[in-house]
């Protein structure tokens, strides 16, 4: 369409440009319109539009009304300002910001798409992993649903795609597609109970963690830390990034985060806890054992 219409335009403009001042005296033929031509250029767009409509309706139906097979992996994602809470109900796993899913086959026993239920705890967010699926919003007080079915393994980047406040830009998401066996192995690791650290610094850190108010916001499975305002830290060190993707997760960034999260992610909802340097070291050491 673009080519045709542009071609027409260039043609007309070129052909009928003014040919010097001598031309000016005569006015060109005065044409008011033509029913036939009008009809023609009304009907053609109507036909194009009609075709577009058919294709669109079919695709919408195919995508939205797809019936999930029995064995589909079901996960629930809850959006928070500015991170993602991820639940694997069937596996009893809670994690954040990084979603592991098994690779699926197009047909046959290996076919295993992932169904994702989307909710929000505060404002509207939107789930978008460009290479895997279009957007679906996470809306408070409303439950949405989408699905993905990756056929190749790898790490896919996603973002929150609905403006949700200060750190909307750093509400990143990763989908890690693994071979089914690897996925099961990962699930096993996530389910294993956390070890209580024996190394003195980490043990001290564990005390400090509970002595400070970290527990009011964070949850660590099997302990008294049951906060739900911040991400689950049970298996923190299995993740690749910290702060929903602001930085790669490693001892340095973790330490910086514990010392003052605002220095890594300005405006994020975890306050600067004003810990002493010793406490910071200890808590970091403790958090490093969470895997």
């Amino acid at each position: 369409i673009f080519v045709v219409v542009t071609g027409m335009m260039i043609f007309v403009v070129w052909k009928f440009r003014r040919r010097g001042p001598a031309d000016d005296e005569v006015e060109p033929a005065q044409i008011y319109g033509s029913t036939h031509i009008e009809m023609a250029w009304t009907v053609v767009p109507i036909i194009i539009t009609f075709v577009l409509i058919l294709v669109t309706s079919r695709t919408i139906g195919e995508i939205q009304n797809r019936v999930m097979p029995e064995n589909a992996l079901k996960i629930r994602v809850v959006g928070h300002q500015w991170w993602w809470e991820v639940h694997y109900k069937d596996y009893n796993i809670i994690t954040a910001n990084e979603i592991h899913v098994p690779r699926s086959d197009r047909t046959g026993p290996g076919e295993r798409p992932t169904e994702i239920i989307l909710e929000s705890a505060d404002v509207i967010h939107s789930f978008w992993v460009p290479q895997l699926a279009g957007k679906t919003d996470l809306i408070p007080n409303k439950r949405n649903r989408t699905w993905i079915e990756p056929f190749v393994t790898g790490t896919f980047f996603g973002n929150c795609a609905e403006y949700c406040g200060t750190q909307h830009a750093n509400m990143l998401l990763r989908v890690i597609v693994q071979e089914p066996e690897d996925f099961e192995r990962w699930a096993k690791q996530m389910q294993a109970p956390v070890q209580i650290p024996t190394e003195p610094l980490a043990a001290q850190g564990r005390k400090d963690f509970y002595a400070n108010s970290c527990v009011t916001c964070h949850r660590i499975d099997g302990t008294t830390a049951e906060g739900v305002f911040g991400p689950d830290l049970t298996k923190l060190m299995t993740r690749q990034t910290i702060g929903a993707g602001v930085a790669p997760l490693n001892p340095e960034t973790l330490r910086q985060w514990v010392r003052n999260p605002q220095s890594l992610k300005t405006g994020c909802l975890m306050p600067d806890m004003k810990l002493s340097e010793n406490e910071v070291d200890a808590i970091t050491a403790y958090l490093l054992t969470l895997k």
Partner: protein
Amino acid sequence: MTRIGNTNKMTAAPAQNLEWKLPSHRKVAVITLILTETALFSIFLVAYLFYMGKSLNQPYPSEILHFPVLATIALLSSSVTIVFSEMALHRGNKPMFYLWWAITIALGSYFLWFTAVEWHHLIFKENFTLATNVFGTTFYSLVGLHASHVIIGLILLSLVFVLGLLGKVGPEHAEHIEMISWYWHFVDAIWIVVATVVYIISIRY
């Protein structure tokens, strides 16, 4: 010079003595105003309908709303009396005009008074306010929007009445008066819709 086109028929020059009549400013303005007000009301109506039955806590419409029979009769009949009033004006019967006009004002005021009493009851006896639940929010905003229009209407009506008594209303104002009555009819018509939605449909929830 060539001319091409489907309209290429030789028409006679348009009549020179063509009568040039344009619609009245005020009528067009008031119709437009009513149109835009209708759009405003529809949004609040939609909000009310949308939240019907969605309140999470009491009270619900069925528990506290009662159809305001007298007030509705008063408001609707005021639409009739204003027509009588206008008819009187057309006949040049000034006293009758003022009488019917005053009755219209009285009926409108009764309606407003009733709303005030209803709200007073709801707020102080039932503890039901704008912030109680989504029902309260939509109820007060919708009925309140209507009531505010009744107030505007009453102010206009009284203005005419007072100015009239001061002898400032002459025959040249007939159209002003007609416009005010249009507006008043509009306020009434809206009430029919609002009352149906609020006191009849939503009372089932």
